[in-house]
C-alpha cells in the first residue's frame, strides 16, 4: 500500500518535471517562433544570426537576461517589486495543471492519465488563477514607483476584471453542454464533435476575452509601448523582466490549450495520435494569436471598455439563455 503510494508519487514528480521542462522550452521557443513569424509577416527575416535559422536565439536571450543587472528603482516597494514577476509566471504555469493534453496510457497495469490533476472544478480553478495573475501586474505596476508602471497596472486591473466576466460567462454554455466543471470531462464530452460547431458565439467570446486576459495585441493596453514605455514592466530588468515575458508566452500556450479543450475537442481527432492532435490545435491557436499581433492595431481604452461591458457581456448572457432553452427543449 505504502509502496504503491510512493510509486505513484514518483510518477507524479516525473510527469511534473517533464511537463515543466517541455512547457518552459516551448515558451522559450515560442518567442523565437513569434519573432520569426512577425518578421516574415513584415517582409523581414526575423532572428537568423544565432545558430541555424536563429534557433539558438532563446538560449542567447536567456544568457543575456540572466547576466544583466537586477535593478530595483529608488522608492520602490522592494518586496512586492521582487515578487510580482514571479506571480505572473507562476499563475500561468499553474493553470496548465488541469489541462488534459492526451489520452492516458497504462504502464505495467498502472493507468497514467496525461493530465497532472483531474480537478472536478477545473474551469473555476482556471478562472481563479487567471484572476490572481492580475495581482502580478497590479503589484508590479504599483511597486515600481513610476507613473508609467502605475498606469499600466491600473489599466491591467480594469481590463482584466472587465474581461474576466465575459470569460467566465462564455464558458457557462460549455459547462452546460458537458455537464461538468472538469476539463477532462469537457474533453470527453467532445468525443463526437467539438463544441465550436454548436457554440460558435461562445467560442468567439471566449477567444476575445482570453486575448484581452493575456494582454495580447489588440488588447495590450497595460503594456502599451507607445504611450506607457512598457507599462507595468517598465522598471524591470534582467530575468525579472524575463519572467514577465515567460508568463506572457506560457499564457499564450495555456490559452491555446484552453481553447482546444473547451471548443476544439481537446485531444480527440481522427487518424493521428491524440497528443499530436492536441499540439496541432494548440499551435493553430498560437499562430492565430501571432497573426493577430502582426495585423491589428491596439484599440483605445474606451473602446476596450465599451466592447467588454456593452458587447461581450450582454451577448454572453444571451448565449447562456439560448443554450439553456435549447438544452431544456431537447430533454
Amino acid at each position: 500500500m505504502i509502496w504503491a503510494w510512493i510509486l505513484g508519487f514518483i510518477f507524479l514528480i516525473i510527469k511534473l518535471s517533464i511537463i515543466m521542462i517541455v512547457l518552459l522550452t516551448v515558451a522559450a521557443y515560442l518567442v523565437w517562433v513569434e519573432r520569426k513569424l512577425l518578421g516574415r509577416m513584415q517582409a523581414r527575416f526575423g532572428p537568423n544570426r544565432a545558430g541555424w535559422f536563429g534557433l539558438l536565439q532563446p538560449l542567447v536571450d536567456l544568457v543575456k537576461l540572466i547576466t544583466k543587472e537586477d535593478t530595483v528603482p529608488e522608492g520602490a516597494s522592494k518586496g512586492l517589486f521582487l515578487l510580482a514577476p514571479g506571480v505572473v509566471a507562476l499563475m500561468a504555469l499553474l493553470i496548465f495543471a488541469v489541462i488534459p493534453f492526451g489520452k492516458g496510457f497504462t504502464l505495467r497495469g498502472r493507468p497514467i492519465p496525461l493530465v497532472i490533476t483531474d480537478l472536478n472544478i477545473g474551469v473555476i480553478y482556471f478562472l481563479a488563477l487567471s484572476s490572481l495573475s492580475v495581482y502580478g501586474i497590479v503589484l508590479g505596476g504599483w511597486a515600481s514607483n513610476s507613473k508609467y508602471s502605475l498606469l499600466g497596472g491600473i489599466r491591467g486591473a480594469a481590463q482584466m476584471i472587465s474581461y474576466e466576466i465575459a470569460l467566465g460567462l462564455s464558458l457557462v454554455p460549455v459547462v452546460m453542454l458537458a455537464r461538468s466543471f472538469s476539463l477532462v470531462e469537457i474533453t470527453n464530452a467532445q468525443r463526437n464533435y467539438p463544441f465550436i460547431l454548436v457554440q460558435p458565439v461562445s467560442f468567439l467570446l471566449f477567444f476575445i476575452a482570453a486575448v484581452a486576459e493575456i494582454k495580447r495585441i489588440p488588447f495590450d493596453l497595460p503594456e502599451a509601448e507607445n504611450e506607457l514605455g512598457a507599462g507595468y514592466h517598465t522598471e524591470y530588468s534582467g530575468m525579472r523582466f524575463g519572467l514577465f515575458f515567460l508568463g506572457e508566452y506560457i499564457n499564450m500556450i495555456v490559452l491555446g490549450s484552453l481553447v482546444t479543450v473547451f471548443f476544439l475537442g481537446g485531444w480527440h481527432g481522427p487518424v493521428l495520435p491524440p497528443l499530436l492532435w492536441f499540439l496541432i490545435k494548440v499551435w493553430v491557436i498560437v499562430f492565430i494569436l501571432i497573426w493577430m499581433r502582426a495585423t491589428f492595431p491596439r484599440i483605445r481604452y474606451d473602446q476596450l471598455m465599451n466592447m467588454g461591458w456593452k458587447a461581450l457581456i450582454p451577448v454572453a448572457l444571451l448565449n447562456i439563455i439560448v443554450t439553456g432553452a435549447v438544452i431544456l427543449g431537447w430533454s
Partner: protein
Amino acid sequence: MEGIRGLAKGLITTLKILFRKPVTEQYPEYKRPLPARARGVIILTRDPDGEERCVACYLCSAVCPVSCISMQSAERADGRRYPRWFRINFARCIYCGFCEEACPTLAIQLTPDFETSRRDILKLVYEKEDLLVNHGGKNKEYNFYRHAGVTMVGDKGTHINEDKPVNVKSNMP
C-alpha cells in the same frame, strides 16, 4: 459587417506577406554596391603628377560643422603650400560632405566606404598618412596648378581656361 471585412482584409494581407520573400538585405554577407558619390570615409587625393592636391587653405577645417578637421600649413622651397600634418577625427565626423564642397583643389573627397567601426575610439583619428591615397579620386585629370594663375608653373595667361592678362592702363572701350 464593415468592421469584420476590414479586419479580414488586414489578416489576408499579413498572410500573403508571410509567404513572400523578405526584402531585407543581409548586410555582412551582401553589401549593396553604393553610388560613387555616397558619402563615407574621407581621403586626400593626388593630382595626375603624383603631387598632393591639398594646399592647406584651411577652408575644409573652417566649414566643418563639427570641427573634426585640423591641419598645419607649410610651404615648399618652390612656394607650393602643403599641410605639414593633417588630421581628421572620424569619431566626430558626420559625413556631411561640406569639406569636399569647400575644397578649391578637389583634394579632400568622400568615398563610399563606410565601415569605420573600431574597438578603440582613438583609432578613428586618422593622420595624413592614413588619409592620403595614390590616385585622383573622382576627377583624375584635374590639376589645380594647371588651371589657376600661379606663377610657379607658368606665366600669367598660360594656364588652362585662362585669358591673357589685359593692360589695365590702356583698356579703353
